[in-house]
């Protein structure tokens, strides 16, 4: 049995990737996630598992390397932070359009533009609403600990290959940079058998495999889009993940993910000491979003405060979930600032619970 290790979130993703049997990592350095590739290069995964690690010339190249590697049936991933993820949107749209699996890790920093290098959650809309052009979705998981940074690598690859869809770990600079204990899974072997759709060379026993997102016939292309829509519906039905903390007797609810959800746990303690029964609903999958589960909570609670390190992006999904049944308000900090537990309790009182 392996012991716990003390590691940064970024390093945990890297070690987890090697152990998950990832075939290729292609990336470009950007703060605050550069430790991912630094760790991989130092860990010599080529010697450990044969994993390929390559520093690309840009995020644009990196995501298209994923497109190539994924098409070849391999487990491929990249990591970056907000400005770099913006550059990858075109490639993600192509990968979604070609229905290929991959993992992208976004260690979010403050924006817009070059923004700041401090943690933020301001890429929620980009991550969950498609991000690039066209009707598509990434499967998005939001870790709230270094352990989840590690665990979600395998979860994401399983989902990516199950649905042939790109996946995203939406982390942030705090979880990427902070050190916590983490326990890793045993080393998994790399894929040896290529999926039947992989471009590995056309053998006489099969038709050629083609990966493209192009179809110039609109009626055929609509059919393809309808196929994607059916796939997304299935994912929405089957793959929602969330966590409820102290919700059983809650009269009010924080809805928060990632770093914000951790701060909210302290806020719950402070609020309850002051007599406000508040719980936390933590969406783990940001797409598919736990709409039904949040709506179910409205039978029990009087109001919701969404806490995000953004100007209020996830609140739109919460509003859509509750369909006006309870009051919903947002509290957030932007530009790389992190809310304190006290600020959040104050916001809960002012905007939702009173008192």
């Amino acid at each position, binding site marked *: 049995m392996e012991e716990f290790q003390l590691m940064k979130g970024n390093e945990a993703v890297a070690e987890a990737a090697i152990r998950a049997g990832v*075939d*290729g990592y*292609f990336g470009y350095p950007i703060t605050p996630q550069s430790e991912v590739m630094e760790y991989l290069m130092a860990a010599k995964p080529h010697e450990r598992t044969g994993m*390929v690690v*390559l520093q*690309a*010339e*840009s995020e*644009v*190249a*990196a995501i*298209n*390397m*994923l*497109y*190539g*590697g994924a*098409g*070849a049936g*391999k487990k*491929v991933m990249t990591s970056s932070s907000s400005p770099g993820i913006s550059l990858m949107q*075109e*490639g993600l749209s*192509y990968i979604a359009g*070609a229905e290929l699996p991959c993992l992208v890790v976004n260690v979010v920093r403050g924006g817009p533009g070059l923004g700041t290098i401090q943690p933020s959650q301001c890429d929620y809309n980009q991550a969950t609403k498609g991000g690039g052009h066209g009707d598509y979705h990434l499967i998005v998981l939001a870790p709230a600990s270094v352990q989840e940074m590690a665990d979600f690598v395998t979860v994401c690859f399983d989902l990516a290959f199950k649905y042939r869809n790109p996946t995203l770990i939406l982390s942030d600079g705090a979880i990427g940079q902070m050190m916590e204990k983490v326990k890793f899974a045993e080393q998994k072997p790399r894929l040896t058998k290529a999926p039947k759709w992989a*471009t*590995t*060379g*056309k*053998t*006489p026993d099969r038709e*050629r*495999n*083609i*990966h*493209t*997102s*192009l179809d110039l016939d609109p009626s055929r292309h609509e059919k393809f889009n309808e196929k994607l829509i059916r796939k997304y519906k299935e994912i929405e039905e089957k793959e929602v993940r969330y966590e409820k903390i102290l919700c059983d007797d809650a009269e009010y609810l924080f809805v928060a993910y990632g770093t914000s959800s951790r701060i909210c746990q302290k806020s719950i303690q402070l609020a309850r000491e002051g007599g406000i029964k508040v719980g936390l609903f933590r969406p783990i999958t940001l797409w598919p979003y736990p709409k039904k589960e949040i709506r179910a909570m409205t039978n029990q609670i009087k109001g919701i405060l969404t806490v995000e390190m953004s100007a209020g992006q996830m609140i739109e999904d919460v509003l859509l979930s509750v369909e006006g049944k309870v009051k919903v308000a947002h509290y957030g900090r932007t530009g790389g600032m992190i809310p304190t537990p006290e600020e959040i309790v104050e916001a809960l009182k002012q905007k939702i619970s009173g008192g």
Partner: protein
Amino acid sequence: MAETSSSNDIVREENLVYAKTKVLTDNVMHYCPGCGHGTTHRLVAEVIEELGIQSDTIGVAPVGCSVLMYNYMDIDMQEAAHGRAPALATAIKRLLPEKYVFTYQGDGDLAAIGTSETIHACNRGENFTIIFINNGIYGMTGGQMAPTTLPNMKTSTSPYGRDVKMMGNPLKMTELVATLPGTCFVTRQSVHSPANVRKARKAIKKAFEYQNLKQGISFVEIVSNCSSGWKMTPLQSNEWMVENMFPFYPLGDIKIPEVQVEQKEGDVLHNSLNQIDKDSKQVKY
């Protein structure tokens, strides 16, 4: 209809000397009459058949006129985003190093939007082949200026001719990548005449074979025509190409591989400039 009665004795399986390769599908290509894309597709397919590597070859199609290349090649292919074919090919080759990988790119794809991917794949010394079709114009979008458009050449976005002071100079990507240590074979060919087709075919074959040297990119530029974009008949466009494109983009090998030759005595391997193909004429740049 097109045959004569006397040819019936000759048109028999045992007398066949040339037929379309089976590595091409039966789909009718969408290219304009006389377009060099069709010929070059066929040459790539013929080389794949000749080398017997159909089941070991992965191609990457570009965005541009040849975006639908995968409809015509009976091989596994991926269709890249505009300019990103070398990035896809980099990953495919690194993850499947025993396979043959090639990109097929036009001048907009390779020399404008994908310049970065092209140069860095070449500079890293990736072991795949790049087939680069240069016709000095954007055919698919309707004849706009390309990075390789000649000075004073008229296009729909340089309707009075390419004014290099205003629009910049044509980019000689092939000479440029030849200067990089990561390319092993760099050549410029054309497919407008039987003799040139034979040379281009040889070059493409070598380019694929050189992937086994693991000395970097093998890069084949095909200077081609665009009768629609140039607003000429196919024959006129080929003549115009010979008169105007070739002086600016001269044909020939620009760089040939350094091959490791084993010495007869001792165990010293040394880098030799011995030419793999003595027919190759090295053009100084």
